[in-house]
């Protein structure tokens, strides 16, 4: 049982971590927390199943097309739900606009795809359903790859440094002549890719199911909130810890209690430390 808990806990934790990174990628580019993060994860699974199983594309091509589609959704999010309300960030209209857009994505998926979980294709065919099955380690590999890739992007490439610059100081970055709007759109595309990878890699585990969006929205947000907004390391540690805790509780005391426990811990920690465990304190208000 321990092996099952570890395998599924790490796998699901890696998915939460990736959704957390999706949130962070959008947040650092625009100071906006977007409800579409979980929906992008859901789309990764649904579109993967659509392209590979229904349309019969080869897995590799299906993967690439899924990511392109998710990146496009990310860009559309930026144009439709984020850019128009950026000027009024203090009124928090983005909460409503991104919620509306996320609901629209979810409803279209429910109606046009299915309201029941649909199968996701076997990608590599490694493992036989045991703890070493690909469905458990694919999300972990994806999480490691994304983390490494982002680290490389942010530290070693000019575009990545430009991302960091607009997240650190938007005004200064614009004064230096950085194309702030294009960089923000690129960040949203990147967030789409990360979310898509999360959904695609976990497709065999979570299936292609429209309701995964809302679920991932919440459980992907918990590690971000606990780790501090914009802090990818916090999101990864928090995500994996959350996954392990949840699966351990699932196997031992049942799913309802784990949900309740996660919720209680979430609220208590945030009431004690609103900026998260690794976050920095808030800025001046007056």
């Amino acid at each position, binding site marked *: 049982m321990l092996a099952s808990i570890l395998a599924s806990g790490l796998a699901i934790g890696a998915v939460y971590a990736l959704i957390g990174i999706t949130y962070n990628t959008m947040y650092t580019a625009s100071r906006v*927390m977007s409800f579409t993060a979980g929906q992008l994860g859901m789309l990764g699974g649904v579109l993967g199943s659509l392209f590979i199983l229904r349309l019969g594309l080869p897995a590799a091509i299906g993967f690439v097309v899924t990511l392109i589609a998710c990146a496009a959704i990310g860009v559309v999010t930026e144009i*439709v*739900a984020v850019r*128009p*309300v950026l000027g009024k960030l203090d*009124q*928090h*209209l983005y*909460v*409503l*606009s991104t*919620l*509306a*857009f996320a*609901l*629209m994505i979810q*409803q*279209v998926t429910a*109606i046009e795809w299915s309201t029941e979980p649909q199968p996701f294709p076997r990608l590599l065919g490694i493992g036989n359903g045991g703890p070493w099955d690909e469905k458990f380690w694919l999300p972990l590999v994806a999480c490691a790859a994304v983390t490494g890739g982002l680290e490389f992007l942010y530290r070693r490439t000019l575009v990545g440094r430009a991302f960091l610059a607009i997240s650190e100081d938007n005004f200064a970055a614009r004064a230096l002549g950085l194309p702030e709007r294009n960089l923000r759109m690129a960040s949203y595309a990147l967030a789409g890719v990360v979310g898509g990878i999360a959904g695609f890699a976990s497709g065999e585990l979570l299936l292609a199911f429209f309701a995964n969006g*809302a*679920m991932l*929205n*919440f459980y992907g*947000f918990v590690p971000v*909130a606990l780790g501090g907004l914009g802090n990818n390391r916090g999101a990864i540690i928090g995500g994996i810890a959350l996954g392990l805790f949840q699966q351990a509780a699932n196997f031992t005391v*049942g*799913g*309802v209690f784990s*949900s*309740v426990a996660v*919720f209680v811990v*979430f*609220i208590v920690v*945030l*009431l004690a430390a*609103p900026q998260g465990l690794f976050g920095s304190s808030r800025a*001046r*208000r*007056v």
Partner: protein
Amino acid sequence: MRSMFPFLIVFGLAAVLPFTGSDYWTLIATRAAIYWVLVSGLNLAVGFGGQLAIGYVALLTLGAYTASVLVAGNLGPAWPAFPALGAAGVVGAVAGVIIGLPALRLRTFYFAMTTLGFATILTQVALAWQGVTGGGIGLPGPTLPAPFDTGPGFYFLCLAFAAFCTWITANVAHSRFGRALVAIRDAEVAAEAIGISKPALLVTVFLFSGATAAIAGGLFATLQSYITPDAFTFDLSVLFFIAILIGGRGSILGPLLGTIILTVLPEFAAPLVAWSTFLYAALLLIIVLVIPGGIADLLDFANRRPLERNRAIIPRPELLAEILDHGAARATIDLRGVVLSFGGVRAIDGLDLQIEPRQVHGLIGPNGSGKTTTLNVISGYYRPEHGTVGLGDVDLSHQPTQARAGLGIARTFQTPRLIGEASVLQNVMIGGSINGTASFAESLLTLPRHRRDERRLRAQATLALRVVGLESLAAVRADRLQHSELRFMEIARALMLHPTFILLDEPAAGLSTDEIKRLGELIKRISQRGTGVLLVEHHADLIFDICDTVTVLNLGRELAAGTPSDIRAHKEVVSAYLGA
């Protein structure tokens, strides 16, 4: 009276509906009435308080199950229906506060998330706790005694609840509590300076909206006659929430119309039922992007009339005697050795400062010298790292920001902090929030103390507006005023506290020469009534004209202090700041 007219039409039409003989439409109207019982309470939290409580279907679920379980006798002996409905209200009120707690400390998105999370968990619990809730199979809703056991009978009961909720929430909306909620939403920083306690206010509102939502849940269970967890989809949460936003924030009529429209809309578009949540979401997006004011804004014809141009602000300081009638302050605001740094920068570096009653104390210095920061330390937005801030014997450094108002310290802001959607008069009335005596419950029912409060606040606010010369604009939406008028409005709001000290942060910025002259006269007269004034300003002329004492700051330290003529002669000040 005129403002009640639309409500009378809506409820009058609703009352004759059953006599048209259509049971089906009576059923739809019953549902709309039940939804409105929930939305009316939620409206105070969302529309007025600006708290994004999205998952309110959770409280509907909770109320429905509490009432049904108690009536069915699954927990102890079976209860009669109406006491069970009351118990649902109590449970809902407690749950409302529990869900609401995070809003006291967390930012909006977090709060939205926690309400969503709570909604998910409640459904899971309802599914798992089979012995009591019947799990996925569900349980029957409560059956009400005669005469409420027929379709029309139940409808009139729900309609009565809806009308009552409309009345009490409208009462709250037009009380100091309603205005304070809007202040928290639009001008939280100013609300603190006025002495509004956000936690106390929000807890009260969450208690109330939790209770109405759970009572609506009990009625909903009766309407459904049989409930399962499936009946409480997230779509309902979206409906409640969007009804408020379509209606318009800070309105009662708007959300009422919004609720009716959203309940009835799917009935007219049967093929679209599957798409209804999508349409609601699309509607939400459109509203947020295109008409953030909602229906209420579209119906607000009065504020589209053009304002008179070339209007001048003529303050009447001779009326100050009626507001500031408490004599001179007895204590002194006393800063000793105050140090405050932001990161590595020492914004204030060991400052001593005394603000005396009956005096205008000027605080000048170059940008970044710590003037506004000093003011913010006195008002409590920052806590000094070292040193003390005292008012007589009271140590202010460890008191919360909102305690200042009660001690008679009022302030204005460098950028005016206003509630754009409220009228000028309401903006000023907010300043007197802490002088109200009626409790929330008294305001709900407009008991005599509430009415007395309202009359007094209104009279005082009108007087304060006359003092600053804005009485002709009292009914105008505050966001239509010119910048200079907003500065005077903030002074009127500060006067509502009958302050013994008033802190003015660059009140002359953006004013014309004439206006500055009148402002100077007003400030002078305020100090002559015994109030101590701290004036942060860049206009050297104004400072030297009206100040009794001037302190010059540089790099967080006192560069010079003394009478205006001392300062004018001070070599360092002249070379560093005033120019030769």
